């Protein structure tokens, strides 16, 4: 590298540190792009922040739900999301066998939803990375698998199911986090649950589902409970949710995950 490019880069770097940008206008904020694959954090990102704020015992927290028997594609899509979050929990717990088991469950459920062969081959990669305890690669592989499932769904005209996978993963991640925070309350940890923008986004997307889907009992329950959660996690001035609110979030998320995993929730 030439000394000139270093100096030039250092100058730009320093200028960036000092530069003060004009604030965004309300119109600019309102017109901001929402792109699901970057606007919604992955469960891994959520769990990484939990690691920084507390010392979760991920081994204890890895208690995967098995998917109940159901013919409802909506319920399967929600469960797929739950399983993806379980995969991240197993990675945090550095439980290789757990990752493999969850990876297998993800692929089995994805097959029922007729996803493409490319998704199924992801299962082999998950196994290989788990075999080698490559936790970092596993985090990336889980997210890539989730994105490929969504892409495959969209290609098969199952686009409406995509948001349900995202919702399922968010619900499971929030369940685990809220349970931990309610038992180990601190303002820093509770602040992680303050995610009104995410809940608003998920509700807006659920609101775009066809009427027949929105009327299904499980989807309607998810929507109603997300509305309840929004009231609990929306706090002014970035203050973290209070201990009672965290307990309520935890109870709501527990009941939702149980209902998603329950078989034959009438659709």
């Amino acid at each position: 590298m030439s000394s000139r490019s270093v100096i030039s880069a250092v100058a730009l770097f320093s200028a960036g540190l000092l530069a003060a940008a004009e604030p965004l206008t309300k119109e600019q904020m309102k017109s901001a792009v929402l792109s699901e694959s970057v606007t919604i954090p992955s469960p891994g990102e959520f769990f990484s922040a939990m690691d920084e704020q507390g010392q979760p015992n991920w081994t204890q927290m890895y208690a995967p739900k098995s998917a109940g028997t159901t013919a409802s594609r909506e319920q399967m899509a929600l469960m797929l999301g739950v399983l993806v979050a379980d995969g991240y929990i197993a990675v945090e717990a550095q439980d290789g066998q757990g990752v493999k088991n969850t990876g297998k469950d993800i692929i089995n459920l994805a097959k029922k939803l007729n996803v493409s062969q490319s998704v199924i081959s992801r299962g082999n990669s998950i196994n290989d990375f788990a075999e080698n305890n490559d936790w970092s690669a596993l985090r990336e592989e889980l997210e890539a698998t989730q994105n490929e499932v969504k892409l495959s769904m969209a290609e098969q005209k199952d686009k409406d199911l995509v948001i349900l996978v995202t919702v399922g993963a968010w619900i499971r991640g929030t369940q685990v986090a809220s349970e931990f925070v309610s038992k180990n309350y601190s303002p820093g940890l509770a602040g992680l649950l303050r995610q009104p923008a995410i809940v608003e986004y998920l509700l807006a997307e659920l609101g775009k589902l066809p009427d027949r889907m929105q009327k299904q009992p499980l989807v309607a329950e998810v929507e109603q409970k997300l509305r309840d959660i929004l009231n609990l996690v929306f706090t002014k001035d970035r203050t973290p949710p209070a201990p009672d609110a965290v307990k309520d979030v935890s109870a709501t998320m527990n009941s939702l995950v149980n209902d998603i995993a329950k078989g034959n929730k009438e659709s």
Partner: protein
Amino acid sequence: MKTFGILFLSICIVSAQETPDSRERGTSRSKVLELAGAFANDGYKIRDGYWSGVLEPGKPQILEVNLFQGNAYWFCAAALAPARKLSVTLFDENGRPVEGEVFQDGSTAAAGLLPDASGRYFVRLELAEGDKAEFCLIYSYK
């Protein structure tokens, strides 16, 4: 801050390895992944998702993201020719610019942040020099 300094040097090396010819090859995504690779070497995990589109002079693009206190983030962007200079700026949920680290080298740029609160943030991507071009933005965290 020390970590950011080491990362900055890594980015300089990555950038220096690019030649004008190599910059023209591939897509804006491959170009931005190259930049983000410097952060991955320091333990940052790159999100699989990305945001792409077309950037025009005088028409910044703004993306909404949700970040967690406790994590460190780098938002990396790259554009293809004829873009010549990009900038990435981060704002909090009230639209106020947030302090952080920035990197800028021609049509690649990045902004780093340690959020002081969890919640909604905005990423503004601007074409400072050059003409309408395809861009790609990704982010990494640790």
